[in-house]
């Protein structure tokens, strides 16, 4: 009996995890299904675009700027070991647009947006505002989740694009003012070695990460437990699960995009 206890616990945990994956998949399916069916709430989408896109710009921009700068320093000192300092501009550009722009952008948005969505919707749940929506003939999924998921899926690629540009600018600043690159050569090398799909794949990743972030925020918010503790737990779970899923999705998408 006691020998089997760890096995039973493991089984329960596995079943629990599978059940929540199933529930999240169903939730995602429902959100996507409602995207194309009226009623639509354009005002809510616009509001969410502002909250998720516009107000995330400073944070994403700062992250990208420092990362681009640090990347330039790292590649310069690393490249010096085999006299390849000249690759700094192109590696910074490729590294930013393919990987760091979308992943760091996605993570910053997860921290900022998944938490605030989960806390807001979770509070609405525990104060019966979600029940009130239902009694006022409004589908909470459609009114709360769909606009946020749509807005995040549209806004994060734009944030990633802006982050890419700022990250490359950070690399350029460090390259020119710290590492004595020639400004024109640096920019030329950046542009020459960058292919469209480098940028495009990063933007697609951004859209996927935006979807994940808003989905996790909404799902955990709507399933929040009771009271302030419930909302706190929902918020934490939303951020953690969004971040982990971003890393997993990033690996999967990279595998799909760049191996063949």
């Amino acid at each position, binding site marked *: 009996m006691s020998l089997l206890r760890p096995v039973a616990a493991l089984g329960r945990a596995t079943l629990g995890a599978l059940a929540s994956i199933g529930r999240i998949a169903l939730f995602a399916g429902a959100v996507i299904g409602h995207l194309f069916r009226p009623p639509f709430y354009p005002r809510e989408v616009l509001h969410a675009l502002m909250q998720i896109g516009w107000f995330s710009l400073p944070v994403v921009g700062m992250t990208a700027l420092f990362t681009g700068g640090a990347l330039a320093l790292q590649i310069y000192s690393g490249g010096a070991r085999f006299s390849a300092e000249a690759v700094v501009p192109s590696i910074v550009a490729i590294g930013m647009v393919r990987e760091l722009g979308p992943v760091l952008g996605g993570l910053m948005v997860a921290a900022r947006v998944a938490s605030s969505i989960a806390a807001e919707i979770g509070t*609405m749940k525990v104060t019966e*505002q979600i029940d*009130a929506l*239902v*009694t006022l*003939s*409004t589908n909470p999924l459609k009114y709360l989740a769909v606009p946020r998921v749509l807005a995040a899926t549209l806004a994060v690629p734009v944030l990633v694009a802006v982050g890419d540009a700022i990250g490359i600018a950070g690399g350029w600043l460090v390259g020119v003012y710290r590492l004595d690159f020639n400004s024109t050569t640096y920019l030329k090398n950046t542009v020459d070695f960058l292919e469209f799909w480098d940028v495009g794949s990063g933007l697609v990743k951004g859209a996927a990460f935006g979807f994940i972030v808003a989905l996790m925020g909404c799902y955990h918010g709507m399933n929040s437990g009771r009271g302030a503790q419930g909302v706190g737990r929902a918020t934490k779970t939303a951020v953690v699960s969004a971040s982990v899923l971003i890393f997993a999705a990033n690996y999967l998408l990279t595998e799909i995009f760049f191996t063949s």
Partner: protein
Amino acid sequence: MIELVGVHKSFGSNEVLRGIDLRVESGTSMVIIGGSGTGKSVLLKCVLGLVHPDRGRILLDNEDVETAERDAFLARFGMLFQGGALFDSMPVWENVAFRLLRGATKRPKDEARAIAIDKLRRVGLGPQVADQFPAELSGGMQKRVSLARAIAADPEIIFFDEPTTGLDPIMSGVINDLIREIVTEMGATAMTITHDMTSVRAIADNVAMLHRGKIRWCGPVSEMDATLDPYVQQFIHGRAEGPIEALR
């Protein structure tokens, strides 16, 4: 007519409703009394389909609410939640006019706002609160805004969960009169939860007392004082001694 037959609901091991049988005729006012935590709010939520009963049936005009067309069903209802449940992201008037600004009952913005201000007036709130946000109001004011929202689209059936809790006696009187008026003049069906015996006498046609998950007593308000049921007697006179244990 709303009819509940053998409705059971548990949360985990907490058996809240243990076989509720209740009938509310159209155009009448039913008041539900009972100690706090006895499941009165859960009962209303079951009728609205916000909580799904484990067993039993709930009928609205002889149609099972579980199988009824949801939108048409909900369009007939108004609900005042115990905690108010106002949307704190929007100003008071948009809360009140929520139903009038979207969906099947959508109206022009000006008209919706005018209706909202009129409903606010009926719950004793001036037009100056219309553009305030719920968080800027006192608890009693929030409750009244929520009441205005519940009646904004003139629903046929209205549920009030503790409408006068947190209000001063005069304002309670105003709200009691309003609820009575909605039933007698507009022919609405009302179910009200309250602990306030003055409200019970002012609002009710019939009274049901919930105790230990069942309807302990149900009858016309005129017979309430005369009943020999010791539970009802203890409750309406607010005695600490009696069959209802104070420790729950």
